[in-house]
């Protein structure tokens, strides 16, 4: 049978062998609880301190500004609700701002805060998926507590102008959190240069461990913890530290940082090769989202066909891709990301995300396109909305 061609690295990555190897002894031998006072405990403590230091160097921040959590989602919830609960305890509410193509971790948290009495604003994006900065400027009100805008989108890889956003937030004196889960592997993570107040990263997208994440938070920002207990992580996230997971996160981030330049170059080339080849070989195919995108993301709509069918037929050939984000792949609505970009439903439904990774080769791409061509052709044959000349039949 075929080899597996995994083009779903934006959904999750495997753990790198180097990363897994580095953690083994923390499972079996150096397994102490970092809060234990004896040597076995102190070694664990030292190990997570070292990990914290590594990450703080990459993020150009202090060690106490890194809070380890159990996922990207948790970090995002901590950043946003941490501010919200602080206000609730003061008997106050307030206003949050985000934008329409955020991950559900942000959107659903906002929706919940609405039920808790907060106001929210979802800024629009343009056709390319980039936030409308003017709208952002006017949306910021006196009681705006936090702006949360993602670094790079999980479906399209579109990169938001973080530095411009942070400048606006600084001028308006409002806090700015960015969800960098997708960006961490490829983009600048220097928090000072980015000018951000809080940032979420996670391990499952950067060849680390699933179930790991971190929140960078400037130390002068006061937030309430979501998880109370033994006062771990500076009192902001209690629970015995996931020592191997933390070490994996630091190692993965370190490797990513080291290889960033070369990997970005290699993947950008591969990405452009694939985009051009698809455009050339498959008629009525449309790249969704700006070209200001991650080096590993390719999101195409193929007119007249539907994403899930395409995904499953590619799967039959050993090619793993995604429609929209992994999380929403089992829902019926078209991707909220693509519709926010003004893409028509019938085209949004035909979108496929190819997310390349560390192990993707040109050969993989060639094979994928070869199979994709046949699949698109066959699905169009049975499609009632497909028209050879116009792409889609007129309604």
């Amino acid at each position, binding site marked *: *049978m*075929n*080899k*597996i061609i995994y083009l779903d690295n934006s959904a999750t990555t495997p753990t790198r062998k180097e990363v897994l190897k580095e953690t083994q002894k923390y499972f079996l031998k150096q397994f102490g609880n970092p809060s234990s006072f004896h040597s076995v405990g102190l070694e664990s403590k030292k190990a997570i301190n070292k990990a914290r230091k590594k990450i703080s160097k990459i993020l150009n921040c202090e060690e106490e500004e890194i809070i380890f959590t159990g996922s990207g989602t948790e970090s995002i919830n901590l950043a946003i609700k941490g501010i919200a609960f602080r206000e609730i305890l003061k008997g106050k509410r307030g206003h949050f701002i985000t934008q329409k193509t955020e991950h559900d971790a942000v959107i659903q948290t906002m929706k919940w805060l609405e039920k808790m009495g907060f106001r929210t604003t979802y800024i629009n994006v343009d056709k390319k998926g980039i936030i409308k900065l003017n709208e952002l400027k006017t949306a910021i009100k006196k009681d705006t507590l936090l702006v949360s805008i993602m670094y790079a989108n999980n479906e399209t890889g579109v990169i938001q102008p973080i530095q411009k956003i942070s400048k606006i937030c600084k001028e308006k004196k409002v806090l700015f959190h960015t969800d960098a889960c997708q960006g961490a592997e490829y983009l600048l993570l220097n928090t000072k240069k980015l000018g951000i107040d809080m940032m979420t990263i996670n391990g499952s997208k950067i060849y680390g461990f699933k179930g790991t994440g971190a929140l960078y938070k400037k130390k002068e920002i006061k937030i309430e913890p979501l998880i109370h207990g033994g006062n771990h992580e500076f009192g902001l996230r209690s629970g015995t530290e996931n020592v191997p997971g933390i070490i994996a996160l630091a190692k993965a981030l370190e490797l990513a940082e080291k290889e960033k330049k070369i990997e970005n170059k290699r993947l950008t080339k591969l990405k452009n090769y694939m985009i051009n080849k698809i455009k050339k070989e498959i008629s009525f195919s449309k790249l969704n989202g700006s070209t200001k995108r991650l080096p590993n993301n390719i999101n195409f709509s193929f007119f*007249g*066909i*539907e*994403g*899930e*069918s395409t995904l*499953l*037929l590619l*799967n*039959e050939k*050993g090619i793993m891709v995604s429609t929209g984000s992994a999380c929403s792949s*089992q*829902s*019926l*609505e*078209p991707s909220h990301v693509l519709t926010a970009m003004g893409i*028509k*439903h*019938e085209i949004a*439904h035909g979108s496929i995300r190819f997310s390349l990774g560390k192990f993707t080769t040109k050969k993989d791409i060639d094979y994928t396109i070869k199979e994709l061509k046949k699949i698109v052709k066959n699905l169009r*044959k*049975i*499609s*009632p*909305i*497909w028209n050879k000349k116009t792409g889609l039949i007129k*309604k």
Partner: protein
Amino acid sequence: MKFEGQDWFYSKKVKEHFLKPKNVLKNKSEIKNYNGYGKVGNMKCGDIMEMWIKIEKGIIKKCKWKTWGCASAIASTSMLSIIITEKGGMKINDALKITGKEITKRLGGLPQIKIHCSVLGDEALKEAIKDYESKNNL
């Protein structure tokens, strides 16, 4: 890592019909051989289905279709086209009674979230029968 197609979201029967759908309309020119036509679905939900049927003496003798949609939409249309034409064809009255449930059952079940796709098939069929009846002033 070798791929052996181990895992599949749907039943074996769905897979079969999705990978090799039966009774697809191959060519527009065939349409003239059919006397009932229905089209249902919408762009927002991501599935649209067209169905052509040939009715003779109150019995559905042939059925062709085209579907834009997910695997279960494709498989359930394919299955429906078989149900109504197998064993010499189905009487109109019986065909009108076919429900999504029946199609789902013949497919070996569908995930909860996909049940609506099988409903689409029987709606297209009803439309086609209505079309036939109105054309024939029945």
